[in-house]
């Protein structure tokens, strides 16, 4: 996923110097938020709450409906481009070599998100790849400033608490803040994709959806 941040006009040595002063202060604030901000990975029940916010809980839906509802909620335009191999044969090869299945581009300035996926992907992988990228948008992963110190890989149990980062600005669907570690953000996007696929297939047969109508 790539983010196009708005470019600042006031570039120059003075700004660079001010940025130099500002960075330690900002990191101090971020460190404090990391001390307080932690949460576990998203559960299927928590995802059902997100679906309720989008008006999709208890309904059967396709990834298109999820994308439309998410775009409307976040007030951004989300477009999915499934690119046939005949149009751009190199895309599949380049993505496959890089070990990726799709690409998410986001522009804060234009309020626009574009998901690019090769048309040659098997249907289930195509669906899950699109849902995975939509999961990044729902989590607000594109609205944080990535911090390299958190980039090491890890595999923990679902209940473990992980550190989060605050948003720069913008709106997200998730209740919690995005994880500081990229590997965790990817893992959670995978979880969102699988939850979305099953919730869309099962509709009101989902035990989590039924829990929202059977509170007592």
């Amino acid at each position, binding site marked *: 996923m790539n983010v196009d941040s708005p470019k600042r006009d006031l570039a120059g040595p003075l700004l660079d110097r001010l940025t130099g002063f500002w960075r330690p202060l900002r990191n101090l604030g971020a460190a404090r938020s990391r001390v307080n901000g932690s949460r576990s990975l998203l559960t*299927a*029940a928590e995802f*059902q*709450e997100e679906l*309720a*916010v989008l*008006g999709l*809980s*208890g*309904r059967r839906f*396709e*990834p*298109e409906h999820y994308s439309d509802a998410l775009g409307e909620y976040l007030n951004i335009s989300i477009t*999915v481009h*499934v690119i046939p191999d005949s149009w751009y044969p190199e895309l*599949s*090869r380049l*993505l*496959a*070599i890089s*070990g990726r*299945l799709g690409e998410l581009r986001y522009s804060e300035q234009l309020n626009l998100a574009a998901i690019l*996926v*090769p048309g*040659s*992907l*098997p*249907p*289930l*992988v*195509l*669906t*899950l790849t*699109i849902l995975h990228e939509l999961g990044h948008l729902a989590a607000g992963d594109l609205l944080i400033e990535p911090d390299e110190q958190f980039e090491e890989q890890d595999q923990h149990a679902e209940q473990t608490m992980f550190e989060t980062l605050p948003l720069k600005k913008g709106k997200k669907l998730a209740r919690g803040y995005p994880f500081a570690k990229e590997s965790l953000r990817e893992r959670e996007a*995978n979880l969102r994709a*699988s*939850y979305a*696929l*099953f919730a869309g*297939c*099962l*509709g*009101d*047969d*989902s*035990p*989590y959806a*039924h*829990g*929202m*109508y*059977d*509170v*007592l």
Partner: protein
Amino acid sequence: MSAAQHQALVLGSVSFVAFIFFLCFLLPSKRTKFSVFAACNLLFVTLMFGAVALVDLSGGRAEIMVAVMTELPVVLIVAWVCLALAGGLPAQLPAEPVARRPWLRAILGSAPLVLLLSVGLATVVGLVWPSPALRVYAPAPPQFFVLKGLIMTPEVIYSGFAAMVFVMAGRATGLKRRFYFKNLAFSVGMVCIALIALESTVFAGLRVWPSREARRAILETLNTLEACLAICCILAFIAGLSLRYTPAVATTLLHRLQTGWLRTQEQFESLEWQAVSSGAAGRLTHASDAVVEACRIEGLSESDTQRALATIRLVAVMRDPSSETQQITPDAARKLYELQEEILYDDVLASKISWAAGWRSRALEPQTVKSAPLHDALKAALELVDNHGESEDVRTPPLWYYIVAVSATDAKMIDSTHLSMQLRDGTERRAAVEAYDAAKRVLRMLEDHD
């Protein structure tokens, strides 16, 4: 026995019957957090009213304390219901209409704090200015109305909000009938509580203002109304709790599918796609082109062609593993096939799990575990690569399988002697060989032409 004792006896008896019903019928069959809480609350109410009926606690601050204590069970019920609707209990989802409205969630979530604070404040008012709270028909000072109002006003508001949420939840489109009636029953119960609280406030007002002659008859009517509402409320809650629904798919099974089957299949298919797209499976390109052409020559359906293509890809990846596809082994393929079979064993689940065959495309039928080419391809590829002639399946393989077998042998992905052991030399095999040879000629001509 005073009127207050008489009223307490009636309410205590009703509560006791409800408690026994809970204990004997509801708790053993469905033990939810609310049913346990309601049972404890009913026992508390029974003991409370029983004590008031047996001991004449008229006069002074003792009356105030008993009056506040008798209000407490209902206040706790309202607080619990509001908290449950707001998703504030551990491992509890909010009601669907609440999840969509943060303001409603905030209001309902504040119920325990506001209600208990108001009870506390009312207790202070009552203790500072004592009033005959338990003497039902006696005239009371204005402070008594303040005391009642402090407890009842938030109770009316929160019960009203809870009733509204239950109605909204019950009216959701496409909802199962059982949920509709369940939420309706709880809504009726909460409306009854709101009406009792409202009636109680009016009752307190009547004790403060009207003359002695008019008061008695009206208060007796209100007392009867309150008893009726209380019975309605308990019956409505019992009806709501009795309506049970078991989801078609259990949470544990769903979790297993999400972390087991889906993860495995996605990993399997994506690794295979990466191997094919990056050209890692070198021998594949020619073999797959020939297989598709041979299927076309034989006039096979699109689904059979896709099965054949998926099978030759699998065989190629399993026989020619690269660093990316080293996880696609016969063992991994067998594990995935078994997981798929597990889903297919459950007809309800298998019919529900599907995914679109294309983005925003209604022209193509959605794929299911059964209809997706990978399911048959896994079985076919395992037979070709890993079976060594031990197949227990005596049925004649379909033509697409023969085409894949011939192609895989020609591309040296599998051993020709192994193939001879597996496939009888019949009409299907001869047709497959002829179609494959013809396909190769066509492809060669096309290459020469380019």
